[in-house]
């Protein structure tokens, strides 16, 4: 299974065919991503507003305004908390879940498929489900908390400045951890049983087996998940927007929400673009850095 295809990039008899095949995808991506990227960079250097009436070149003044804007850095901080919070929580829950469903039990094939139920449903349904469960007047969660005397007053989870962020992180994690668990499970199953048996004979306990066998064997999978997961989650917009619209008072305003608000609520297309470009640069640096520090993970591992 570990067959490795060597990457070749010189001319040979497959070249023409390869170029023909990649052309549609390439064209698609250039039109839909490269052009908008260039266009965004251009907009971030002008004074264009939402109405598109004015458009004069203003150099980097939008960037200067942004990096001196407290709200921008607050949003950056929120994005950090959001991304790290999601990564940790999802990894822990995903790993635990994978270990649980890796056992032999009745109905395992059913569980191993339907566990990703929370990932299949549209975001809007996710938002309705949790807004209803967490509702401060009629929500079932508050009822249960009060029933068991955990709290005296109902808690307004999505309306509290302190709780809103942890709550949206929890909801997003609920959506994604089963998806992660499935992938981790698949990786777990590729670890040869003999290794565990040998370790048992040497007297290793479960924890040692996990540290010395499971974890190292899982590392390639985890590092791919780490990268894609981070990129995906930092760019998430819809979940946050549908649950809190970045509020209350900016408590959940991550960079994507900030960009959206700047563009569509404050009509500052130029500043929205500048913020998005900064995020883009930041992520690019992150990717390069990730390739550098993660030894089991090379760029060619990812795409080639």
């Amino acid at each position, binding site marked *: 299974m570990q067959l490795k295809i060597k990457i070749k990039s010189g001319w040979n008899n497959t070249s023409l065919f390869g170029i023909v095949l990649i052309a549609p995808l390439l064209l698609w991506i250039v039109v839909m991503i490269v052009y908008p990227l260039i266009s965004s960079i251009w907009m971030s250097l002008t004074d264009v507003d*939402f*109405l*598109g*009436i004015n458009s004069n070149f203003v150099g980097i003044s939008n960037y200067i305004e942004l990096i001196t804007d407290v709200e921008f850095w607050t949003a950056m901080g929120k994005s950090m908390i959001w991304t790290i919070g999601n990564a940790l929580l999802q990894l822990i829950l995903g790993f635990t879940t994978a270990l649980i469903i890796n056992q032999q039990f009745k109905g395992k094939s059913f569980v191993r498929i339907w566990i990703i139920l929370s990932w299949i449903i549209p975001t809007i349904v996710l938002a309705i489900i949790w807004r209803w469960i967490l*509702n*401060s*007047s009629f929500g079932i969660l508050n009822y249960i908390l009060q029933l068991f005397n955990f709290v005296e*007053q*109902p*808690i*307004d989870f*999505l*309306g*509290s*400045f302190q709780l809103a962020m942890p709550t949206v992180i929890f909801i997003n994690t609920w959506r994604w951890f089963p998806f992660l668990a499935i992938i981790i499970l698949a990786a777990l199953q590729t670890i040869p049983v003999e290794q565990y048996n040998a370790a048992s004979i040497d007297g290793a306990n479960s924890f040692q087996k996990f540290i010395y066998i499971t974890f190292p064997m899982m590392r390639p999978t985890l590092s791919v998940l780490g990268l894609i997961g981070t990129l995906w989650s930092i760019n998430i917009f819809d979940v946050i927007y549908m649950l809190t*619209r970045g*509020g*209350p*008072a900016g*408590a959940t305003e991550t960079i994507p929400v900030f960009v959206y608000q700047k563009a*569509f*609520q*404050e*009509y500052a297309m130029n500043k929205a673009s500048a913020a998005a470009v900064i995020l883009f640069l930041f992520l690019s640096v992150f990717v390069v850095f990730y390739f550098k520090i993660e030894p089991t993970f090379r760029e060619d591992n990812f795409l080639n």
Partner: protein
Amino acid sequence: MKKVGSILLVMGFLVGVVSFAVFGQQVEIKIWHMEQPPHRVKVFQEVIDQFNQNNPDIFVKQQVLDWMNAYQKTIAAIQARQAPEILFTLPDFTTVIKQTGAVQPVDELFMELDQKYDFIEAAVKPYAYDGHIWAIPTYGMIHMMWYRKDLFAQAGLDPDNPPRTWEQLLTTIEQLEENGITGIGVPASYHMYTDQAIYSFMIAGGSHQIFNENGEIVFDNPKTVRTFEFYQQLVDHSPQGITGWSWAEPQLAFNNGTIAIAIEKGQFLSPFEEESGVDGSNLGVAPVPYPADGQRGSIYYPNGMMILTTDQAKLAAVKKFLNYLYEPEVNGKWFSMEPGLFLPVTNATLNSESFWSNPIVAQYQDLVKLMIEQSEYGRLFGFNHQSVNQNIGKIAGQYILAQTVQEMVVKGLSPEEAIKWGEEKMKEAIK
């Protein structure tokens, strides 16, 4: 039998072809409005259907827009040349959309309708600037203080003597609470409702001027601070969840008896009996309370219609439709979308049988009359000087007042700090 069937089929086909030929000439008029609740859409559709039936050469079609993305969608549609012919609006919304150049002056049509139906001046004033009229007023909405007479009686308060001043309001709330009733619910959400509620109190507190006469922001002043201090007190008495309130929550809380007082517009009338389970005589309304040195008043919104087409055939169709819509008969029926919420902006409708004969309006006649009376004290941010400050759209579109309330309530800033923050935000917005 078979023969009959095929003849019918051919006939059907012919009818289809002929009607296509006839209706192919139809002028289509698209209307975008923001009256989302299904029952409002339904009544509007009935009004439209009647028009379409009598005017086979015109086809009017309504589409619903959410205020939350109205700016974005409208501007997008204009840029993509997909704008509707008629777009519903509020005065501050018009100031923004007008900058796209797509909004057409309606002076002539307004004059024509005015001759026939006699518009109330206050309703058109916020649309009249830069030498033209930019929208035809449709209906007005006014903020009132709604209260539950039954809950007042339970707490030993006089149901027919609601609080008039801020001091009285606070003592009333406290007395209600002593009797186990949550006195009031005011919103603290990032929402238009909060914008409107705080502004009603700002008017009452005498700090309705966001701009001075030179168009500079004068939001940060002692009177605004006093209003926010008072508002914070009301927030402290409000139930959980107000940081997420939109239009529906206060009404629900009011009708199920969670709160005894709410500050809202006239949509409280029609579902009251059914949802609260008590008789309609228990619904009380009064002007928004004001401090001793303040003034009577609350936020008054004249809604309107902008016209975004220059096509002659479409303009003629629009003209025909509006002439129909403002006939008192039709107008009255149209307002029954939400009886009590929509207040007439023409004297013709105001004095018409069809408006007052609506069962809900008839039942709550005195309340409706009080709302119409309060409208004369109504004000709207940005429209308080002789000239309209067109920057208001940028402030209203971002709900900066609501954001300021959130800074105070959610983040825990002091009123002074929050207002300073709001003033900066406003200055930033109009830069």
